[in-house]
């Protein structure tokens, strides 16, 4: 989920003009090469007494590879490749692999990110209510799933950016009040990112 968010941010890290509109943002959404972006994550969960903070990097390689490498407070790698979701926690030596199902929360967000990355506005409109606003202080795009049979999938994603600036913030809101916020800073792009992505995938896919 967070991976997806960060990917979205990555995609949004392209410059937005002062006359940002949904169409113009979507048109500029598709990255031309592999990209990475660093993040600061803050989670506010009902079952945690304090907010939780983490940091790391997001990586994206079109059409369907998205990775999140958390570096603090402890190392953790999550990834999506096609319809597969991978997770690896080196500290616990925990490794999972599962398939994304259409109905679950993560799939809803993956679909959203794929739609955004591919600039497929028609697809997004069939599954999400899109709300794009601009103010003097910046632009904002909110995606709300239209159909859900699970309160957990009633996630609202909000992306924000400064005028004529890259997207610098992504918020994820759940129906039960839990909230995750990412602050984003563009990092690298190109062959170096591709190599890094390959290394991380090798770790995730290894038995």
């Amino acid at each position, binding site marked *: 989920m967070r991976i997806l968010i960060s990917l979205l941010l990555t995609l949004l890290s392209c410059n937005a003009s002062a006359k940002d509109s949904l169409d113009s943002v979507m048109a500029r959404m598709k990255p031309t090469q592999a990209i990475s972006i660093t993040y600061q994550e803050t989670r506010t969960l009902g079952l945690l*007494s304090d907010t939780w903070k983490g940091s790391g990097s997001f990586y994206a390689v079109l059409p369907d590879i998205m990775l999140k490498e958390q570096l603090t407070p402890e190392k953790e790698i999550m990834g999506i490749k096609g*319809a597969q979701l991978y997770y690896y926690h080196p500290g616990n030596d925990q490794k999972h692999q599962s398939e994304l199902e259409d109905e679950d929360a993560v799939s809803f967000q993956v679909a959203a990110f794929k739609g955004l990355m591919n600039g497929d506005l028609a697809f997004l409109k069939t599954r999400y209510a899109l709300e794009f606003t601009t103010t003097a202080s910046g632009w904002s795009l909110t995606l709300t799933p239209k159909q859900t049979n699970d309160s957990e999938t009633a996630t609202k994603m909000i992306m924000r950016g400064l005028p004529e600036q890259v997207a610098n913030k992504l918020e994820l809101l759940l129906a039960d009040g839990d909230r995750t916020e990412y602050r984003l800073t563009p990092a690298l792009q190109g062959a170096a990112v591709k190599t890094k992505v390959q290394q991380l995938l090798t770790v995730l896919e290894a*038995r």
Partner: protein
Amino acid sequence: MTHSSKIKSLFLLILSALVILAVTTTHFKTDISAFFIAGDNSEEILLASEIQSGTLSRRTILSIGSVEKKHPSQGFIKQLTQSLKAIPGVTDVWKADETRDMVKALETLYLPYAAQLYSRSPEADLNALLNPQGLADRAVGLKQALLSPQAVIVKKVAAQDPLLLALNGFKSQFAAFQATQKTLQPYENLILESAHSGMDVPEQTRIQQEIQRIFAEQSKAASADGLRYQLDMTGVPIFAAATQNMIQADVQFISTFSTVVLAVLFFWIFRSLSVFFWVSCLLVAVLSISVLVTDLLFGSIHGIAMAIGGTLAGICVDYPLHALVHAQAVESEHRAKAIISLWPGMLLGGVTTLIGYLALSFSGYPGFQQVAVFAATGILVALLLTRYVLPHLITGITKTYDQQHFTLIWIKFCTRFRPALLTIVLILAGISAYTLSELHWLQDLQQLTPELDYLKVKDAEIRSRMLSIEPGRFVLVSAPDVEAALQKAEQVYQRLDQVKTQGGLGDYFGLYPWILSQQQQTQNAQLLTQKLTPPLQQQWQKALRVNGLSVEHLGQWQYPANQNLSLQQVLKSPIGHLLDNQIIIKPKQTLIIIWLTEHQPEAIQAALADLPHVQYFSQRDLLNKLSVSYQERSQLLLLLGLSAILLVLFIRYRSLWKALETLAPALLSMLILLGIWALSGMPLSFLHLVGFLMVIAICTDYGIFYQENPDGNIRLTYQSIFVSMLTNVGAFGCLNFVNTSTLKTLAVCVMYGLILGFLLCPIMIKHDWEQDRSLENTLKKRKS
């Protein structure tokens, strides 16, 4: 209309009614296991019946792969699943490695019962958890889980069950499924369950055709994705349909081909198609009545019983043929008398054949009880029809029988060189007897159907793509009711855990974590209530604070202990289908099947040896054990049957020597055949025993006819034996051209046995030429 014409018309009328009745009312079965499997105890019998018609039999495994060796798209699989569910008669379709239902069940069904189902060893598990260190570790784990990809489900569980007790048992389940998903496989397996039994071949064939049609349509439409999909299927319905189609094709072929062969033979021998017609009518009457009686007594008739019983036609045709040859040798008005004179010999032949088949019915193969009833009815009806109906059917037929000179030449040759021929035969018999110790039996029943090997290979391939359960091997727990069975299964889990620790077992899949016995659930809840003390709760709250977790939401322990989860609740839930291949509930007996992964059978057997009504079960071993036990019993019964036949012959002839002499062609042909088999190194199966029994039954008839020589004309008698031998060899020879190897085996045994038995009659049975009219007739002919 003459008296004979009236009888003919009446006979044809009754025959038509019999055929219509047999075709319209008989219930046929084709499942090979139904023919062979019975089981020695109630558990095995119930299991055998379940394998044949229960839930297990109703499932087809569909394995969808791609030529490009890439994982099928989930969109394609989802669409295919929806379409397959819409096929009439299909009750459900699901992915074999489905975990979503498990997660849903955890949320909807199991959360309120965490206190009841958290462990099979509550004392040890609670002691490990309920101490300061254990609670601190659990709090750390909880936080990690809340921040992991599984946070969605963990949040729901933790809100009601902060200690995550409900997840305890499911860890191993998820790990097992995870193990199969570590790499992305180039296929997806679906389970399709139908409302019809796997043995309901017409319905299953229809469903299979629908599956193929839907798959072809959707894979064609999906080819735009760049993947070319392939479908493989396995399961009881697939094997049943393939077996039945093969048997049906063979039966159609045999019925057509053998009819043509017999018609040609009859025309060559009797120069009369009407003889062929009437004898065929007699045979149809014999088979129809046999089918009807067997169906009446057993409720159905098995295809194999029908096929083996059908070869009985070879025996039944002997009586009318024997009568015909003798009757055709005299004028029309003397035919009834000629047939009456044969009656004692035919009756004796019928009784000896009956003894052989009755012996076979005690061999243990359930199907052979049907064969015995089929044969007994057939022999009785054939005898009565030959005696009372045949004379009327052939009254108008002219004397057209063409005598075969070969028979007289062979009789004379045997008479002239009898001592030398006897010596050769006895030497051959001696060598055969010596080589009998080299005979070896077919130990694996599956080898009986090599023509289905392609399905077996496919089956192994598909199953290897699924969980590494050994499908034919499991632990079987039996008890009078569900609760007792669950309690016993819990004892078994403990033993299997020990074997796992010792390395004798990879893993096992019982009914836990889905359900525990009511006794264990009550014990779990009581123990948990006792152990969750206020000081421990304070320790837990401290651990939560240390880890930044909410004491307000997670600090209170509220585990209701007043109600247990019942098996019925589980079976009615969406995960019911995950369990119903593991439990069989009948009014007075419940069976639980515990599936095993890779294991050492001896280790499992040793661990469970002292638990009553618990057995390590290997389907293949059971079949092979049954096969060995049937074979041993069949050999004994064959010997007993032979002794009984000898006794009957002794009573008839009042001379042991004469009785032995009569039996000798049958006995020696079987012995020599066995010797050839032993020297060839080919394994012997129960089918060979059936073949030998038929050889003995038919050749004993030859011996009796030859010995009795009712009208004192050995040439005529031997010619009648020659005719019946020829028609039998012709009929059995047709079996050589079918696909079913079991029928080919039978054909080879019987064909050579009959030829040998026929040739041995003049050698083994000394003929009194002084009282024979053959010579006199021959001389008369020469003079004229």
